């Protein structure tokens, strides 16, 4: 047997022996059988940050009930109003995910006796591996009907009572603890106060969260508008003394997760609860102390089991 051939033979034998070592069994498994693409999950604890939607939605077959509360402002006879409880605004929603990527729901908000219907739909998912995707992109669209009665004897056509919100949520989980999102937002009112006002207001939501423990996270959210409308200011006599732009919603909160619930406790300058009022018709200012304590509570029920 020529020397070279012997060497080859030995080499191959050595290789085949080497392959059967334990660590190589594991390496062999790791090389061949791990999932090719890994998707990010739990970018946020809840389906909302405070006022903005997140890219999260309940899993397929899951029903979610949320109670959203905004107490009266700290500067509105806070103690007299039982720490803002007596002049709190409430919103309730019920939503369901018929598909993994689709969530639909109904809501009612006390402010202007508003009814709404909404849908949230996943467009992309952040992933790495074979399929690389930098961000999760999710759409949110909703329609609101303000059913408030007015005693000013002015007739209001049904279509003037509608408003609409679209959010495009672009989120990324940067580390297991830190996530952030930017949310181009469009708010449309069929009816605005004056002919000079914009029916459509554009805003850019910004939000981030940092997990301080496994069950707790700090959140911050800011929604600046690009073409804010203004509202009149009234003097002590009731006369209009000037006008101010509607303010941008700024909120700081704490998420607490307890199994099937997520509790979100926060301070915000926006009391209207429903999206159009919070993003484009908010009069509260942090600088003037118009701060509202609030909470969002969610509860999920698994209607259709996965297995």
């Amino acid at each position, binding site marked *: 047997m020529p020397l070279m051939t012997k060497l080859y033979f030995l080499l*191959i034998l050595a*290789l*085949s022996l080497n392959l059967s070592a334990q660590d190589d069994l594991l390496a*062999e*498994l790791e090389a061949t059988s791990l999932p090719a693409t*890994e998707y990010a999950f*739990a970018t946020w604890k809840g389906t909302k940050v405070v006022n903005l939607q997140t890219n999260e939605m309940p899993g397929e077959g899951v029903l979610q009930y949320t109670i959203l509360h905004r107490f009266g402002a700290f500067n509105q006879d806070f103690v007299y109003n039982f720490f803002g409880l007596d002049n709190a605004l409430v919103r309730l929603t019920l939503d369901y995910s018929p598909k993994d990527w689709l969530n639909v729901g109904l809501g009612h908000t006390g402010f202007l006796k508003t009814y709404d219907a909404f849908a949230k739909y996943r467009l992309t998912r952040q992933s790495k591996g074979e399929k690389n995707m930098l961000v999760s992109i999710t759409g949110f669209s909703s329609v609101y009907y303000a059913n408030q009665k007015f005693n000013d004897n002015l007739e209001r056509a049904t279509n003037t009572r509608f408003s609409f919100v679209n959010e495009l949520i672009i989120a990324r989980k940067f580390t297991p603890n830190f996530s952030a999102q930017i949310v181009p937002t469009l708010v449309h009112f069929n009816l605005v106060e004056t002919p000079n006002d914009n029916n459509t207001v554009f805003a850019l939501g910004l939000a981030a969260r940092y997990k301080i423990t496994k069950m707790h996270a700090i959140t911050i959210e800011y929604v600046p508008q690009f073409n804010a409308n203004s509202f009149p200011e009234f003097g002590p006599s009731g006369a209009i003394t000037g006008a101010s732009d509607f303010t941008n919603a700024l909120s700081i909160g704490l998420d607490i997760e307890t199994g099937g619930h997520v509790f979100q406790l926060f301070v915000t300058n926006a009391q209207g609860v429903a999206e159009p009022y919070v993003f484009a018709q908010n009069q509260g200012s942090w600088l003037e102390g118009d701060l509202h304590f609030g909470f969002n509570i969610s509860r999920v029920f698994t209607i259709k089991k996965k297995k």
Partner: protein
Amino acid sequence: MDSRWRSQQLKNMKKTIFLSLSLVLSLAASAQKLSTRSAEVSFFSATPVENIDATNKQVSSILNLENGQFAFLVPIKAFQFEKALMQEHFNENYMESDQFPTANFTGEIADYKLISLEKDAKLTLTLAGTMTMHGVTKEIKQEVMIKVNGGKLNLKGDFIVLASDYGVKIPTAKSDNISNSLAVKVDATYD
């Protein structure tokens, strides 16, 4: 010139034959290596408040019948729960699967020479090795049932795994819902 070229060619041919032969030999050695990518691992947590169970059908494993060595690889995110939120919490709060995406168990089968694919048999053998989960490695020994039927090998085992052994903390507030002691079942049929 011509004859030199010919002898060179002959040499090359010999080399190729030996090479192929040794390759065949090494393949024959690995023919005793059984593997699967669809082994099942499930676990069950029982408390008076609720029962939690999850199944993973994407577990891969290799058994080398030549030397008795084995390996199991478990992708943590592939555990399927009844409730989506449970699955999220399992990955996010307990297994931290972004950080520790897999668990594994490697080692040797004691008395592996008793295993023969030629004849049907039922054997109770002991797996001894190391289990790594949630970044923690522990030595374990575990009896499993190995069944050979028509040349196919099936391995079944029941383990008790303590979450606390692997640095998975269950908060006191959750201890009514989640048991620290998990009943783990393995079921692997090799190709």
